[in-house]
């Protein structure tokens, strides 16, 4: 049982001063490098009639932008860079686990909490910018200010969003990874390839989709 946990959980590789560098951080750097190189080569020679990788970049941005516009309307255009980056980063991280020696960075709760906290901060910022500082503070006391239990409920709901958003991605990815690791132990050939279609590819794509759709929904909610 312990070697299953060791294969899924983050392992410390080396230390940078006081900061431990785990293998999931190195996997995050790999994902960042892939996305950065793709963005560089896709936009190096921009043309009106796209050629090569510019086609793929435009397709991705159009699909994600279409989803964003369907949910938030034209005001959602501001959030396109954030949402598209979240979508590409999470989906690519989830799919990285297919390659046997590599690990998904999303198997580490620290990555998921970081992403969830980023969405949480953006929600607070867009709430302030949409309602003003007074409206933002007043939103903690909705629907009526003189019943103090509503303040507790509002704060708990806000923190609950953050926790459920990041734990959903973590739980789904780590659960799939543990089941795959156990199957690899008792049936190392043939069987894992079939199950990998579900646990790695399908579940990874669906969870990435759900993660950025929920981010859009939370931001939309916070704008009131």
């Amino acid at each position, binding site marked *: *049982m312990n070697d299953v946990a060791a294969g899924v959980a983050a392992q410390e590789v080396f230390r940078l001063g006081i900061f431990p560098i785990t293998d999931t951080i190195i996997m995050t750097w790999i994902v960042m490098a892939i996305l950065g190189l793709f963005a560089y080569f896709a936009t190096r020679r921009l043309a009106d009639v796209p050629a090569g990788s510019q086609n793929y970049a435009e397709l991705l941005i159009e699909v994600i932008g279409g989803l964003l516009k369907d949910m938030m309307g034209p005001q959602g255009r501001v959030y396109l860079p954030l949402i598209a980056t979240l979508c590409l980063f999470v989906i690519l991280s989830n799919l990285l686990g297919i390659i046997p020696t590599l690990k998904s960075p999303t198997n580490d709760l620290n990555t998921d909490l970081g992403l969830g906290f980023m969405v949480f901060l953006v929600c607070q910022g867009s709430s302030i910018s949409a309602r003003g500082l007074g409206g933002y503070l007043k939103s903690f006391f909705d629907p009526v200010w003189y019943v103090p239990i509503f303040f507790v409920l509002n704060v708990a709901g806000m923190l609950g969003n953050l926790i459920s958003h990041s734990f*959903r991605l973590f*739980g789904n990815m*780590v*659960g799939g990874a543990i089941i795959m690791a156990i199957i690899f132990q008792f049936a190392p050939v043939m069987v894992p390839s079939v199950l990998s279609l579900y646990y790695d590819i399908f579940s990874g794509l669906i969870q990435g*989709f*759900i993660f950025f*759709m*929920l981010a859009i929904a939370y931001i939309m909610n916070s704008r009131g």
Partner: protein
Amino acid sequence: MFGIDADTGVILIKIASVVGAGFCMGVGAIGPALGEGYVGGKAMESLARQPESEGTIIRSMLLADAVAESTGIYSLVVAIILLFANPFVG
């Protein structure tokens, strides 16, 4: 306590953790299963009524499934902690 030495105590805690993890996952999966089945059934109904709005229905269904799934994910996290990172065994 109760005349049990330390080794027996640790073994008892391990047994209780494994049984607890099994119960946690089994009972915790009932609610999300009911909820997701209900959402899926309703989505099928509205899909049969309005086949032209398939994209919107499937998207909303996935979002509602994800929200209904949270409690199941919480029990999964608790079960994983009990099995792999048990805080009661030093």
